[in-house]
């Protein structure tokens, strides 16, 4: 295993692009929300407010990095890092284009699942370390929500794995040359989408933070760049889930020849990013227990049925 | 082929196991005892995985998977027990539940 210059370059590029993209996403979200809510959104800094994220960055960096006395300091500091770290690591397995891939692991999807389950620690530890009852409640909600939705997330992907016969995302993309997996795995797609939203605790499933109930929940005690990391992690998470959906169900970089593969990938991912923002604008937040019973009582059986049917059909057509 | 000395891995597993045992023997908090049990299980799993790789058979990994499912069930029941334990004795001291002494 020799690390070549190209690999390092790709790594650096990916990290850079993702940071910028996350920044850009903040602007995009605020603009779009304004659009859908029939208002302007940020439009003062730079052309069409494009430099607004930069301004926010500067603000966040220069705020006082205050750690309250009552918190568990080590864990308090550690928590926001985890989510950024695991999410960035997850990008290692995303095939952006042919050759533009950090690590073609044969257990790619499992790696993603592993990282996303580790991501739960960020919320839990953050909430616990804050030593604040709202934060703790948020953390507990987050923990149960993430554990719950991790299960279907893994199971919903397995349909795709069955069809492609590999855990490697690259092979999965290549297996979709004859047709995207959205068609045979529509149920899997739906479940993965819902579970993805829940995993990134985006609206409408932002129950761990739930501003109106828990006054920002697990990151209520965070400020400055530590809060910024949570923020960054959330947008990285959206990007990750979007790109995974694209890779798993929409053929990844595949597309007609007139555009290079990387562009196809970015375009498709953008669509889902917009979809995530639209969801935030459109849907109300469900109750906590509703979320869990929806997961266990509807999504889990649905996924299992999907798996069984996929397997049965696979066996049937193999025999033909 | 991976050129790792098997015995080193097994020694690592033994050390982990021993650490878990020490934890189990020395800690009075039932939660820590549960953790120590997990450490020991994990060490056992490590030995199985080494065996699996050494003989190029999947059996060892299967054993690890079964250890894993066993650990999951054990933790689920164990935590429920700890919950009840705490409710009943209002402490996590394992020695508090010594009503069954001879």
């Amino acid at each position, binding site marked *: 295993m020799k690390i070549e210059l190209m690999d390092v370059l790709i790594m650096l590029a990916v990290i850079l692009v993702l940071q910028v993209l996350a920044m850009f996403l903040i602007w995009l979200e605020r603009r779009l929300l304004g659009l859908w809510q029939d208002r302007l959104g940020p439009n003062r800094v730079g052309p069409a407010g494009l430099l607004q994220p930069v301004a926010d960055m500067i603000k966040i960096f220069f705020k006082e990095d205050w750690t309250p006395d009552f918190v568990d300091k080590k864990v308090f500091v550690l928590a926001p890092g985890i989510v950024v770290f695991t999410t960035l690591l997850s990008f290692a397995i995303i095939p952006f284009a042919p050759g533009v891939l950090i690590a073609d692991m044969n257990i790619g999807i499992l790696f993603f699942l592993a990282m996303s389950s580790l991501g739960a620690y960020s919320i839990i530890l953050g909430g616990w370390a804050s030593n604040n009852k709202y934060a703790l409640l948020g953390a507990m909600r987050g923990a149960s929500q993430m554990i719950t939705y991790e299960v279907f997330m893994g199971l919903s992907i397995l349909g795709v794995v069955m069809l492609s016969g590999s855990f490697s995302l690259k092979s999965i993309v290549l297996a979709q040359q004859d047709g995207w997996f959205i068609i045979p795995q529509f149920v899997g797609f739906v479940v993965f989408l819902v579970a993805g939203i829940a995993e990134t605790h985006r609206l409408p499933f932002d129950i761990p933070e739930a501003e109106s109930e828990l006054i920002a929940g697990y990151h209520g005690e965070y400020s400055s760049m530590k809060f910024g990391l949570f923020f960054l992690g959330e947008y990285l998470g959206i990007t990750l889930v979007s790109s995974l959906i694209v890779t798993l169900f929409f053929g990844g970089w595949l597309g007609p020849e007139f555009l290079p593969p990387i562009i196809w990938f970015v375009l498709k991912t953008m669509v889902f990013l917009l979809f995530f923002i639209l969801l935030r604008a459109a849907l109300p937040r469900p109750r906590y227990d509703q979320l869990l019973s929806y997961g266990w009582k509807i999504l889990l059986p649905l996924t299992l049925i999907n798996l069984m049917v996929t397997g049965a059909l696979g066996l049937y057509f193999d025999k033909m | 082929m991976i050129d790792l000395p098997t015995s080193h891995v097994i020694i690592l597993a033994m050390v982990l196991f021993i650490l878990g*045992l020490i934890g*189990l*023997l*020395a*800690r009075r908090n039932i939660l820590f005892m549960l953790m120590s049990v997990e450490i020991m299980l994990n060490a056992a799993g490590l030995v199985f995985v080494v065996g699996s790789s050494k003989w190029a058979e999947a059996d060892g990994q299967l054993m690890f998977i079964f250890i894993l499912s066993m650990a999951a069930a054990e933790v689920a029941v164990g935590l429920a027990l700890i919950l009840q334990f705490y409710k009943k004795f209002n402490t996590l001291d394992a020695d508090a*539940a*010594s009503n069954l002494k*001879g």
Partner: protein
Amino acid sequence: MTESIWIIIALPLVSFLILAFVGQRMTRQTIALVATAGTGIAALFTLVTGWRLLSSNQANFEISSNLWEWINTSGLTIHMALHLDALALVFIFVITFVGFLILVYSTEFMNEDSGYARFFAYINLFIASMLILVLADNLLLLYLGWEGVGLCSYLLIGFWYQDPSNGYAARKAFIMTRIGDTALIIGLFLLFVEFGTLNIGEILTAAPEKWVTGDTTAKLAAFLLLGGAVGKSAQLPLQTWLPDAMAGPSPVSALIHAATMVTAGVYLIARTHAIFELAPEVQFIVAIVGAITLLIAGFSALVQRDIKRVLAYSTMSQIGYMFLALGVGAWSAAIFHFMIHAFFKALLFLGAGAIIMVLHHEHDMFKMGGLYKKLPVIFWTFLIASASLAALPLVTAGFYSKDLILWQVFASNIGGSGLWAMGFAGAFITALYSSRMVLVTFFGKTGISPTHRPGWAITTPLLVLAFLSFAGGFIELPHTMGHTQLFSEMLHGTLPALTMRELPANGELMLQIITGLTSIIAVGLACLVYLRRPSIVNQLKSSSFGNLFVRLWFTGWGFDVMYNALIVRPLVSISKLNKKDILDNISIGVSRLMAFGNSQLVLSQSGKLRWYMMIIALGAILTLTLSIVI
């Protein structure tokens, strides 16, 4: 039809089941009907089967019927199989026919009793068990019937269980016979070990091939079988239970303790005759046992006051004759005497029962007296039966059977004049006590007067049995008088003939005249001393020597006292010694040790999880250390 001999057993069994389960809810008429019908039909069936077999003119007829496999383990296969030959035919004829008559009798006799259904259920179960015993194809099935009749005997002796002494008598009978049963089952084990089978036919065929005459194992086997027979047939030394068994209702005494169950020992010996022939010493012991029993029982019968006890001792005595006959190899004579004895002894018991019933349950003969006018039917039938018992020459069946035994004892190469003399003395005593019984009961001073005359259900069986007691002998007449041998010819295929020694030509006639005259003399003597000159008896009794013997005989030669002194008392005193459970200290010590160990180990049970973990760790270390060191 001949294949379905199981029906003979099944019919009484069905009656038993019906009576046992729904008998409490039935009226007395229904109970009587159900009770008698089963055995009655079985008796008819037996008659028909017997007739067909006898008219088939086969020399050696046998029917085997395999019903189902009962036990099958490695090396031991027992079939529920029945086997009917001439010997068994005689027995099932007696059992079903006499049994039926006794059941009919009982419908009236037990009419006042509250345990009506229970009584008939037991009797039917008894008949079924007895039939299983005699029809069994293998010794285990035979043993099943053997124990079945033992159980029924126990239940019926203690039928009136409110009186503790009846329960005591029942237990005594059960335990005494159990001693014999133990010997029998050990004998069965021995035979199984030797032959690997329990099938009677196979054993009888294999025994002469395996053993030479006088083989020690054969002796042992025969001796053990004899032990079983002695217990069941109330012979010396296990005879003491029979007089006490008279505590049961009279029909029970008639059926079980006179006609059928007590002769099971005779059946067993006759059935396994091949083994006894291979052990001549044991066969001779059989003869000795019979001879001694017939004498001591006869003496005891001579002085009893209770009419049923007289009959009980008489039964022992008559079975002694059968044993004597078996012992000298006069197989068919023994069976012939069994049949005749079943008739007249059942009749005697039934008659005695009827007398007792109408005399307010009075058992003492000397309180009866002068009944011959008041109860004519009972008197005449009783007289016939007594004459048969006393073996009055020419006209009674008892004469022919007993005479046959005496002659064959004399003529046999095993027997001889010594055994003959004992049998002869027994015959004299028999005539004496039977005459005494009749005279005291029916003549002399008028005692208690009867309440009523028994009805037809009682008198009919008496008449039928009286006819048989009178006419039954004519199917087997000696050489000297007509020479009819229907009975021994029938048994010829099943039982071997007697081996005779060289004798003078007219010896048989001489002996017959002697025995015939003896019984007549005995009857005359009895008339003299009990009717005309009672003072002779009283003088004899009052003399110190006579008094001693009267007391000795009255208690059955003091066997009960002896057993009490030799066995029961020592056992009781040993138990008393062990009252504080001295021997138990061994086992208690073990448990104390355990308790002590437990109390020490309990200390290790601190209830602390970590402590247990420590022990586990120590165990692991110990194991590893051992594996390293060793």
